Structure formats: C-alpha cells, structure tokens
C-alpha cells in the first residue's frame, strides 16, 4: 500500500515537474524595413501578435514577439536594429531582406550563432548556394504579382497603352512588380512605360497629368502602393477618366478600398501580409520545439481583392487582418 | 554762447567685477565744440561713452545734459536726449539702400487705407538733399550702401545724425579704416557738423587726425582722467607722449599749465 502511494506521489511529482520543465519561453524578433507611417506593416504586426498570443494562451509555452522597424525608410537604421536584435540572442529572427548585400553579414552571423532566421516580404533573390541561408521565405512574389496583375487586365481587354506609377524609385520590390507588369504587357504588344511620381500627391498629380498630356491614349494604369493610388484616383476622378482607364492597385487602404467599391479601380493585389507576421512566429515555435520545417517557401501573394470579395475584406480591414 | 557745458559727467566710476574700468572721471563737452577723447587701449574711453549712451549705468557719479541732471538707462534715452553715436562698423547696413539706412527706425510714413506705408518719395528726396550737401553723388538714393566708400559711409552716418537733430555726436574711430583722401573728407564734414551747431566727441588712437579738428582733448589712463587740454596749450606730439609714457609726463605737462 505504502509503495503504491509513494509510486503515485512520485508520478505526480514527475508530472508536475515535467510540466514546469517542459514549459518553455521563446523570444522572437521581427526586424523589418517598415515602421510606423505605413499601415501595411500594422497588419503584419497584428499577425505577429496574434500568433504569439495564440501559442501563449493555447499551450504551456510563452512566446514573446517583438517588432522592430525604422520610422522613416532607412537601410542603416534597419541594420542597426537587426544588430541589436542579434545581440539579444533571441530564439529566432524574422527579417525582410530589403538589401541582401547589407543584411548578408549580420544574418549569417546570427545563423552561425544558432539563431534560426526566416525571411519575409522581400526574399534574397540569389540562387540557393549563394543566398543568405535562412530557413525559408514567407511572402509575396513581387515579380509574379506584377505579371498576374497585367494578365488580369488583359483578360478584360487589351489596352492601347499601359503605364506603371512608381512612387519610390529604386525600391527593389516595387521595381520587380513594375517589371513583371511591363513584361507581360510588352509580350501582348502593348506599349508600357514606367513613371516616377514621388510621394507628394500634389506633385504626383501634375506629373501624371503631364504624362497623360503627352500620351493621351493611355488606358491602363498600375500603381504599386497606396501612396501611388491616392494621386491616381484623384486624377482620374478630376479628369473624368473613371471607366475609361483600367486601374490596378497594390495593397489595401481606405482610398484603394473605396476606389474598388466605386468602380474606379478594377482590383488590388495583396500579399496578405497578415500571414507574413503570423506564419513565421508559428513556424519558429514549431521549429524550436519540434524541429519541423516546411519543404519550400510559402507564398502569401499575389492575392487579389476586387468587387467580388470586397465586402468580406472590408469587414476584416477594420479589424486589422487585411 | 552760454558757459554751461552741453554735457557734464561728474565723478563717474564703474567696475566690472574686480576690474575698475573708471574711477572718479569728470568729463564735459561744451556747446559747438569738438572734444577729442584719447588714451591707450584699456584706458576706459569705450566704457565712458557706453555710460553716456545708456548701454550701462555708472556705479556712481552724475550726468548733466544742458544743465539738467539726467538718468540715461537705455540707448533710447540717450537718443531721445539728442546723443547719437556712429560706431565704426555698425553705422550702416551694407545690403540696404542709403535711403533705408538713413531712416531706419524713424521712417516717414503715409497712411494708405488701414496701413501705413513708407513714404518713399520723401525718403528719397531728403536723402538726395543730404547727400548733395555732404558732396556725395550717387545715381539714386536707392543704391546699396555697399557701393559707398568707407569715408562716404561715415559721412552719411554723420549726416543722418545732423538731420535728426542730434546735439551731441559721438564718433568711435571714424577715420581708422580710411585712406588719406577719405579721412580729410570726413574731417571736413565733422567741422561742417560743428558749424551747424553740434558738439562732437571724437574717440581715436590717431592723434594727428583728431588734433586737426578738435578744440579740446581729454586723456584717460587706466580708468582715470589724467589730463585735459585746450588745443592752444598742447601739441599733438605732447599728447602722444603723455599717452605713451603715462602719468608722470602728464604731471610735468600740468606744470606748464593752461594759459589764461
């Protein structure tokens, strides 16, 4: 009898101890080139927080997810933040590979230190042997997004002339989107241009006006983000060109949303960036705890929002998921 | 001509911390006279003048202007009394026109509806007249002061003081940066101003310059007045000697005494 009781007690102790021992705490850093000022990243942050909360509340483990991003786009700031994150010796790092050359050294160092790294939003474009050896990439495919956007337009009708409005020249991701779009258009025999419009809407409208004045047959426009969408929508509305010019946008914000609802824009491309915050946290947890790893990159985009699903998406935007 | 001096500073003392800049200095200037205020660096000339023009108050002593005791607490007070100063580099603003400089702070205006606009015509006409009197010829009073030579600028500043009814004009190193020809022009103009009824305090290191126009001289040394002469009683070389070799020489000079 006594030995049975002792056995039970011992089992209880072991069980209790194992719960304590097996309950882990993980700290993951998400370091990205996007900070406050771009609501796009607000959604990524929510994905990150939701994933961390889900694990913390649903298991015995605790996940701390911390987001770092510079207020104004600055590569140096990004690298500094990354170095700070690495110095904290976290259990995992999630990073946007905004500039592979600049991020190569710090990330390789992190990986050598045994910190698992997942890339999001912007991948390292180099081939497998050369690129930064992060575990995998979660994000959109910029080039593919541009291509699919053009294909969508061509499915409706072949435009006489197409133009891409780029608001941040030299931004690798934007340039890839533009390239994909322009190549598909060119293959279809449509003359396609790229126009740098800058970030000030008043000036952008005038640049757009100048382009249309020189190219009045333009009837397809692709913008690469909300900063480009605002002046474009304003211009089309003011000039009465709604319906005459096909407009494809990128990412979601209130202006883009309304443009789709009012029929000014045909669609907007999304990269479902919620997943870019959510999935890496989940995977870092699974990898740290059980060693699981997906076999391939996870593409979260291109996804499309247009008149057919705008109703659902609109609700979710308010809640911060889109 | 009354015997009463225009300005009388009595037993003025001033220290800055432990440094006694002035001690018991008496200084007076009569009506329509040119007084040369001389002395080596650090003698206290600049401090004395700053007290007279309201930049700082004296620690002790009194100032009388036209016979009445006055308290000069700010540069504005001094200007209101009729004391004007022409500093070497601060007299005119080179980027502005002669007209604007002349009337700075006292511009004539005409009412146009709810606002007061500068009376450009009056400004230009007045300046044109004054320039003609001084003998400076320019294409227009709207020209920048920068086109005037150093001597011309000094003359314009003096002309400004005369125009605005200054009674006492203090010139701080007016000829130091000028050529010989220019210097003579300015000295001539100083005498002109005196003819018009002004008194002038001429502060300088160049004894020969001041000697040619001054009526009397006050010599300061280490914050005290060590000598005062009428021109008739002293030569330029003697003044230089006093400044150069100090109080001892001054005492010897006093033995010779003023005449009359």
């Amino acid at each position, binding site marked *: 009898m006594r030995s049975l009781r002792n056995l039970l007690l011992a089992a209880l102790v072991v069980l209790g101890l194992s719960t304590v021992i097996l309950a882990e705490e993980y700290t993951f850093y998400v370091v990205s080139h996007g900070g406050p000022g771009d609501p796009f990243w607000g959604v990524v942050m929510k994905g990150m927080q939701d994933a961390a909360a889900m694990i913390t509340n649903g298991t015995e483990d605790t996940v701390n997810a911390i987001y770092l991003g510079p207020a104004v786009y600055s590569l140096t700031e990004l690298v500094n933040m990354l170095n700070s994150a690495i110095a904290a010796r976290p259990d995992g790092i999630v990073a946007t590979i905004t500039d592979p050359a600049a991020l190569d050294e710090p990330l390789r160092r992190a990986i050598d230190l045994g910190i698992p790294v997942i890339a999001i939003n912007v991948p390292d474009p180099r081939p497998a042997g050369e690129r930064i050896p992060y575990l995998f990439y979660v994000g959109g495919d910029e080039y593919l997004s541009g291509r699919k956007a053009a294909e969508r337009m061509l499915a409706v009708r072949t435009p006489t002339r197409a133009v891409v409005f780029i608001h941040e020249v030299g931004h690798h991701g934007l340039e890839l989107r533009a390239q994909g779009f322009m190549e598909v258009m060119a293959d279809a025999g449509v003359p396609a241009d790229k126009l740098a419009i800058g970030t000030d809407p008043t000036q952008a409208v005038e640049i757009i006006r100048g382009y249309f004045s020189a190219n009045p047959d333009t009837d397809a426009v692709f913008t690469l983000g909300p900063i480009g969408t*605002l002046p474009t929508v304003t211009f089309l509305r003011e000039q009465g060109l709604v319906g005459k010019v096909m407009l494809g946008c990128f990412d979601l914000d209130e202006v883009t949303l309304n443009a789709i609802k009012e029929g000014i824009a045909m669609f907007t491309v999304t990269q479902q960036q919620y997943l870019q915050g959510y999935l890496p946290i989940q995977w870092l947890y699974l990898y740290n705890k059980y060693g699981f790893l997906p076999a391939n990159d996870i593409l979260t985009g291109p996804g499309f929002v247009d008149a057919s699903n705008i109703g659902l998406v609109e609700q979710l935007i308010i809640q911060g998921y889109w | 001509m009354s015997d009463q001096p225009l300005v009388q500073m009595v037993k003025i003392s001033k220290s800055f911390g432990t440094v006694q800049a002035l001690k018991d200095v008496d200084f007076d200037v009569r009506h329509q006279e040119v007084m040369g205020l001389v002395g080596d660096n650090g003698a206290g000339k600049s401090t004395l003048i700053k007290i007279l023009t309201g930049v700082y108050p004296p620690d002790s002593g009194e100032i009388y202007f036209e016979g009445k005791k006055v308290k000069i607490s700010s540069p504005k007070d001094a200007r209101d009394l009729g004391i004007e100063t022409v500093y070497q580099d601060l007299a005119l603003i080179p980027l502005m026109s002669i007209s604007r400089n002349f009337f700075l702070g006292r511009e004539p205006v005409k009412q146009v509806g709810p606002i007061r606009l500068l009376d450009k015509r009056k400004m230009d006409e007045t300046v044109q007249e004054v320039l003609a009197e001084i003998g400076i010829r320019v294409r227009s009073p709207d020209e920048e002061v920068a086109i005037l030579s150093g001597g011309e600028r000094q003359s314009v500043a003096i002309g400004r003081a005369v125009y605005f009814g200054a009674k006492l004009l203090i010139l701080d190193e007016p000829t130091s940066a000028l050529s010989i020809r220019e210097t003579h022009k300015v000295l001539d103009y100083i005498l002109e101003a005196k003819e018009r009824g002004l008194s002038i305090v001429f502060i300088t290191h160049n004894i020969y310059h001041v000697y040619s126009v001054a009526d009397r001289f006050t010599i300061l040394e280490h914050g005290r007045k060590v000598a005062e002469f009428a021109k008739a009683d002293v030569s330029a070389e003697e003044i230089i000697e006093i400044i150069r070799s100090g109080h001892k020489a001054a005492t010897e000079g006093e033995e010779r005494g003023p005449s009359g």
Partner: protein
Amino acid sequence: MGQVTNRTGRGTAPPRFSLEAFLTWLRRHPEFGAFAGTVVVFIGFSITATRFLTPDSFAGILTVAAELGIVAAGITFLMISGEFDLSVGSVLGVAAMIFALTVKAGWPVLGSWAVALLASAGIGLINGLIVTKTGIPSFITTLGAMMFWRGILLAVTKGFPIQFFPRTLPPMFFALNGRFVGQFRTSALWFLGIILLINLILVRTRYGNAVYATGGNRDAARVLGVATNKVKLINFVISATLAGLAGCIQFARFLSIDPTRGVGLELEAIAAAVIGGTLLTGGAGNLVGTLFGVLLVGMVRSGLVQSGAPAYWYQAFVGLIVVVAVIVNTRLRRWALG
C-alpha cells in the same frame, strides 16, 4: 568742402537708358536672375513639349507652385531676417492632421481651420522663443523641431492615414483648393495673394525695413534701435503659420493625409527662395524672386514629363538649377556692384 565725384567720374545725370542705368536697376532687383531663368526654361520647354503652352499645363504648374510657394513665401521672409526654418514640412503635416481630425470629429470647418493655423503659429512661436532666448542657431533648433513634430505626428496617428469622406464638399474646402476655372485652383489665388501681401510688408513698411536690417547686420540694427528679437519671433510665427496653411490647402483637395506628408519640403522651399535671389546669409531678397523660383521649379518638373524625359531626371535637374541660379545671382550682383 572738396569736390566729390562718384565712381565713374560723372555727376548726377538725367535718367537715360544705358548700361549704367541697367546696372543700377539690377542692383535693386535681385529677382532678375530667377525671372530670366523662368523665361529661358519656359521657351525651352515650349519647344520640346507640344502641350506645354496650354491652359491646362499652366494651371498644373501653378497648382504645384501654389502649395510650395506658400511655404516658400514664409521661409523667404524669415531668411531675409537672418534665420532658417527646417520644420515647415513637419508643421505642414501636423496642421493637416489637426485639420483632418477636427473636421472628421464634426467641428465646424472654419473652426477646425483656425485651430490648425493656431497650432502652426504655436510651433513657430516655440521655435522663435528657443532661438531668441537661448541663442541656439535656428538651423539646429528647427532641425530638432522638424524631427520632434514628425515624431509626434507618427505617434499620435500610429502610422495610419486619416481619410475624410464627406457627403458634400464643405464650401471652405472649395475656398481653399477648389477648381474654379478649367484646371485653375483657388490655391493659386491664396499663393498670389500671400506673395503680394508679404512683399508689400517687406518692401513698403517700417516692419519690412526692420526685417532687412535684422538680417543685414543684426548688431548694427540693434544699435540703431531695431527690436531684432521681436522681428525674428514674428517671422518664425509667420513661417510656421504659412506652412500650416499649405497643409490645410492640400488636405482640402485630397481629403487624405498620411503621416509622412511634407517630408523634404523645407529644402525645396529654401531652394526656391535661393533661386529667387534670397541670400542664405540674410539681409537681401524679396517675394517676387521666390515667386519666380517656385514657378521655375514647377515648370521644370512638368516640362520634363511632358517632353518625355524620364522623370528620374527631375531631381538632378532641380539640383543643377539651384547651383546654376546661385552662381548666376552672385555673378549678377558682382557685376551690378561694379
């Protein structure tokens, strides 16, 4: 009294057209360089871009010029009195944000506008007080202000833009930036009105004289009784208020304001002022020059796009123009002074 002759040995001659007369006129008008440049660029683009000479094209140039110009006007006035304001871009953003938030909250539009302008004036006052009371150079003070207010903007908005979707456009919005004839907007009227008013104050009032004096030689001005600190304080307030006005005007058209609006504006405004003949060191310049400076900058951008040049060139072109303009203005000045 000896004989005095002026530099060329001639006495006062009756006015007649001559190189002399032109040089004198040139001395009094530093904006000539910008004016000439504007004409040259205008002619140039008229040749390379067929639609350049249309009313729509002019209206477009004027629209861009108006917003930049309102800010540049304030900065010019401040620069002439010897100080800089690098915070105008952030003030534009803050004012627009306040305008947007209050209007969305249902306040009467006029009241919202007034609050936005008052807030801008307040920022200018703070800038001015720091500069005049502590003696910290305005370049540093307003640089700090630029970063501070931009940070406040980001923190308050948490990065999200503010968008306003009224059922009908409030009349005040139309008054600020509505289209009244073709593509011409009321913002151009604000711009021209402000240029005229401020130039009048600068060139034709006692206060304007004090502004020139304060910038030309602050110590000399002070010695002559000019209240230089008060002048600077007032000009800081004016500069910031005008920047705030530009922010409200922009919002009135786009109905949307994001927290990065106005970044980089200060340098463009200073460039326009410098192109127009205002000296970086203060004491000289006028609003007419700024007018041409702003038009020139607007024309270059529009003309390049309409000529089919890659719009990537715009930045390089404006930089080139600024340098050329300063060289030309300096040479002209030297030539005019003989």
